[in-house]
């Protein structure tokens, strides 16, 4: 946040994650060491080697659908519906009603990779056009182009800015906007642009939202080929653990409302005070002072987590935790989820544990094992490394009323 004299606070948050619908469910799951990762379930594919996934439950999906008008749902893959629901939660906490206040809004969105079109969109057609050597692609082309066998709205469900379009329509938001793709880098870009818009006075309230899912055979195959998720049938993601068996993917959405601190009533605030990014983790800028809390991404792979731990050691922190065992590895909102976790920790003055961690890859680092603990927390660093290369660092400062 170069040259920033205007402080930016998180005024509201919302999420739909494998841990449940809403921030409270997420915070409870993290605090009570309950993972949202479960047995992988799909009507489209099956696997014994990729055995677990961080699913958003059907019940939470149905709850989220109530936040999106029926006529818009035909344009929405599930992740976009979760995104709208997360935004509405965040606005409610921030006490904002776009259209009923005089604020100028900005909308900054990020989507994960394979939200749509997933193979499910073509599954029936492929099956129908299949012979012993696989699908006849000429026949499939004929079915699509001449017999109109494809969902006409598939292109809209597949938009990389579909989340932006649906949120703007659902909330009747006519405002500055940006859509970004992919995980940590997309979250970072959305947060950076939102902060810049607030600091330059172009907007008064910034909505930052990310959503995505990799629940698709081609998507999961790509993650497996890249070594991001395990193919050994593992059911748990053990972050920073020497006995880790690899990563497990998850899905979900998260949203933040950012405001200028000066525009908010007096009270405790969590302020986003620094943003850094780099394509190489080892070259990532880190603040030169020790922080009370560090929230880190994790891979579940002991070797990769040991590499990451070396960067964490460079940061210096009194306590280290991670949300990844709660949600799985997210493609749409990884940094936003970590910011929500960090904010809740700062507000509660409590550090949730790293679920399942028993033998840390670095015994000298202050990973939080077992149960959560109360602590004096004034600031928090969030370090994210994406599975496809990008790294980012965020700093949150806590301002109490005292």
């Amino acid at each position: 946040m170069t040259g920033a004299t205007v402080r930016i606070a998180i005024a509201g948050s919302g999420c739909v994650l494998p841990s449940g619908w809403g921030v409270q469910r997420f915070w409870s799951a993290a605090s009570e060491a309950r993972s949202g990762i479960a047995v992988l379930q799909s009507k489209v594919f099956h696997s014994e080697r990729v055995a677990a996934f961080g699913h958003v439950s059907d019940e939470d999906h149905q709850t989220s659908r109530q936040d999106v008008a029926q006529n818009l749902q035909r344009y929405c893959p599930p992740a976009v519906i979760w995104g709208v629901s997360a935004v509405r939660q965040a606005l409610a906490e921030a006490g904002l009603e776009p259209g009923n206040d005089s604020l100028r809004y900005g909308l900054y969105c990020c989507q994960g990779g394979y939200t749509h079109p997933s193979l499910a969109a073509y599954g029936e057609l492929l099956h129908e056009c299949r012979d012993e050597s696989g699908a006849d692609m000429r026949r499939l082309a004929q079915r699509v182009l001449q017999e109109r066998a494809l969902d006409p709205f598939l292109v809209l469900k597949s938009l990389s800015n579909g989340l932006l379009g649906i949120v703007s329509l659902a909330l009747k938001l006519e405002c500055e906007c940006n859509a970004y793709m992919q995980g940590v880098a997309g979250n970072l870009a959305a947060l950076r642009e939102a902060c810049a818009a607030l600091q330059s006075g172009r907007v008064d309230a910034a909505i930052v939202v990310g959503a995505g899912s990799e629940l698709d055979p081609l998507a999961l195959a790509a993650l497996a080929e890249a070594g991001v998720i395990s193919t050994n049938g593992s059911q748990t993601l053990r972050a920073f653990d020497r006995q880790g068996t690899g990563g497990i993917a998850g899905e979900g959405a998260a949203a933040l409302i950012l405001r200028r601190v000066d525009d908010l009533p007096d009270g405790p605030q969590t302020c986003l005070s620094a943003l850094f990014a780099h394509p190489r983790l080892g070259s990532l800028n880190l603040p030169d002072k020790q922080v009370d809390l560090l929230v880190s991404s994790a891979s579940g792979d002991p070797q990769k987590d040991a590499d990451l731990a070396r960067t964490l050691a460079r940061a210096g922190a009194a306590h280290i935790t991670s949300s990844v065992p709660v949600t799985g590895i997210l493609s749409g909102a990884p940094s936003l989820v970590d910011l929500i976790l960090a904010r809740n920790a700062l507000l509660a003055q409590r550090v949730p544990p790293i679920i399942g961690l028993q033998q840390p890859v670095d015994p000298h680092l202050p990973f939080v094992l077992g149960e959560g603990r109360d602590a004096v927390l004034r600031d928090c660093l969030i370090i994210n490394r994406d599975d496809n290369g990008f790294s980012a660092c965020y700093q949150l400062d806590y301002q109490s009323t005292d």
Partner: protein
Amino acid sequence: MRTREVYVTGFGLVAPMALDAATLFERICQKQSCVREHPRFKALGFNNSAAGFIDDGQWQQIAAGFGGNATLHPRQSVLAEFVARQALQHAGLTPTAFAHARSGLFLGANKYCADSHDLHRASRCMDETGRVDLDQLLDTPAASRALFGRRVDQQTLHLAETLGIRDHISTHSDACAAGTMAIGSAYRAIERGEIDLAICGAVELMANELPYYMFNSLGALCQADLPASEQSRPFMPDRCGFVISEGAAMVVLESAEHAQRRKATPLGRVLGYANVCEAQKMTSSSRDGSKYEECMEAAIEDAGLLSSAVQHVNTHGTSTQANDSCEALALQRVFGECQEHVTFTANKSAIGHSLAGSGAIEAVLSLISLRDGVLLPTLNYDHDRTEYPSLKFLSEPMRQSINVVMSNSFGFGGVNSSLVLGRA
């Protein structure tokens, strides 16, 4: 004058049938279309196989200049490096310049969809009920050796690593507006003093069968019984959809101080920008053009100009009924009585619609018009039959010195963007 002026000091471009910006500009001047029959679409038996696409010959030349084993990288990274090298060379910069400056990378791109090879691969792993056996799929190697080959941010990562760019790194995915919004975001970051140097634009590779299926199923693609080169006909009454295309373009932006310090020759300036979501519909704007009008007005205001200062508009002009109608009405509203002093062009008539790539490509063509004083014709445009006679679209190239161009990009999802560019 702005607090910090933003100069354009270099650009690079690859489009169908053109491996650089000068070649593309010259092709359009000569009214040569870049749209032709796509051999893959023909092989799949499409009735209409018209597309703009980067062909195998072009890919060989692009890969030949890659600083590594191109087969190990996603195609979008290979293309991005090729275009970035052009832009840097044009700007007189070495790649190390970015690591030594406060710099940023802003690249537009939408999704890289699966293709027939991926679908065929998956279909071979289906059981009798149609469910895919993921374990079998994992044992069936993908055609490409590149990891994350379908991930849209890989070209951004590759360039950020190659150029040593940190912090300001973004992959803009605002559908058809992404290229313009990437350039606009870079302009803003320089203008507010956060960075001094940026490379920005878009890389789009959507000319394959799955995007074709999806856009066609929505009714957005031209299916007229016309030669490929005549199918994209923006603003004509018989327009009936866009022609899918692909391509990439990037520009180097610098703060005036940075450019002057290294004695760079400015090619143009970014004067203003607007990016708004309009909350109307997913696929079209307000029928009266008012939302597009608001976007253009906001960009002109950001430039500190009046609409009468804009002399030329590079329209979004997709050749769909709805978009061109909304844009034409918006242009009439913005320019009012000044219309006769403004000329218009629609580059998609020659290139097709390269989605995210289009805004960046059109920005580069606009910069050449500003630099060289040559305005591009709109192919397949007939003055005698036009639906909007008050808008002066050129059907022949025109030599005329201009100072200000506005370039529009409007995307599905209701995202609108306008960029105001000025002569150096």
